[in-house]
């Protein structure tokens, strides 16, 4: 049964297993100088549309490090704050207030790991997943891992044409 014409919203109501393969992606950024920005992108372009299932990020300051990270979608690695501002927001309502799109504060905590469940359908336009890391005080390493899949385009009738 062809469900490729269904909207993202409709396909997101299908059972989890209809989405098939879910793969882990990572993006790694290292800020090795104080008060600098660095940017990185995912290894591959994202499926379009994609299901963003969950993400985890790992913050590794040297000692009393502090900074922030931002998430987005773009066609290439951003090279400036302005370019990151223009990246497509992945989680538009996620940001702290007044601090820019998709910004996540990384406080003065060692080895912080944050994990978020999501399950969100996103029109990615086939862009890369990009991150911005800002290091306020010192060397900081930042890694984000996330689980993504495409959305179902075709599946067995028994999955959809009954009363599922």
């Amino acid at each position: 049964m062809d469900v490729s014409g269904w909207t993202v919203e409709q396909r997101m109501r299908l059972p989890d297993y209809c989405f098939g393969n879910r793969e882990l992606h990572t993006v790694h950024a290292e800020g090795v100088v104080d008060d600098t920005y660095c940017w990185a992108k995912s290894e591959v372009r994202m499926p379009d549309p994609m299901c963003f299932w969950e993400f985890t990020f790992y913050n590794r300051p040297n000692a009393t490090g502090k900074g922030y990270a931002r998430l987005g979608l773009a066609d290439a690695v951003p090279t400036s704050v302005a370019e990151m501002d223009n990246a497509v927001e992945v989680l538009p309502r996620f940001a702290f207030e007044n601090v820019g799109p998709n910004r996540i504060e990384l406080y003065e905590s060692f080895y912080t790991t944050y994990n978020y469940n999501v399950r969100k359908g996103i029109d990615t336009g086939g862009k890369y997943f990009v991150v911005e890391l800002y290091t306020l005080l010192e060397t900081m390493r930042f890694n984000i891992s996330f689980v993504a899949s495409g959305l179902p385009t075709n599946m067995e009738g028994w999955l959809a044409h009954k009363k599922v």
Partner: protein
Amino acid sequence: MYDVSKWPLDKIMQLPDWCFGQRWWVGTYIGTVAATVSYFFIEESVPDNFVLWDVLVAVNGHAAGTIAQVTFRLCHETPVSGNIKTMRRLMTNMSCRTETYDIHLPPQSVTHLGPMRNIIEAGNDQIGGAVKILTETATVENAVACLISGIPKEVPDWVVSGLAGRQ
């Protein structure tokens, strides 16, 4: 039972989770090794095609300003520095593919990467890899493990005969 052994993998991956049956952890203890790189090889054989549901990495670095770097590979023997870069990565969407390591973690942590639902075409290979804790000079102990299952070859008839959702 309904034979799904000829189904393509992407179609099999659309079956409900429970059709994949038992999952089991395969892993290995890595230690005690001081500094440098610790190569590992998980002794258990894995199916030719298997589903990777979860990955666990436990690292125990103590050095200041350090970070744990990890890579998982498909291989048939314990990797060494000379061949690890030529071994297939277990997960192919990881950042820094031009480098040896593709997972970067806090140095003292037990981390689950996932949960995922990733079909792996291992062929005759098993799971190995390497762990490196930057600037670590002390003896440390680490461990890695993967939660895997095979893929279904058959499912109950009613799974594919339309019973799902019927009143």
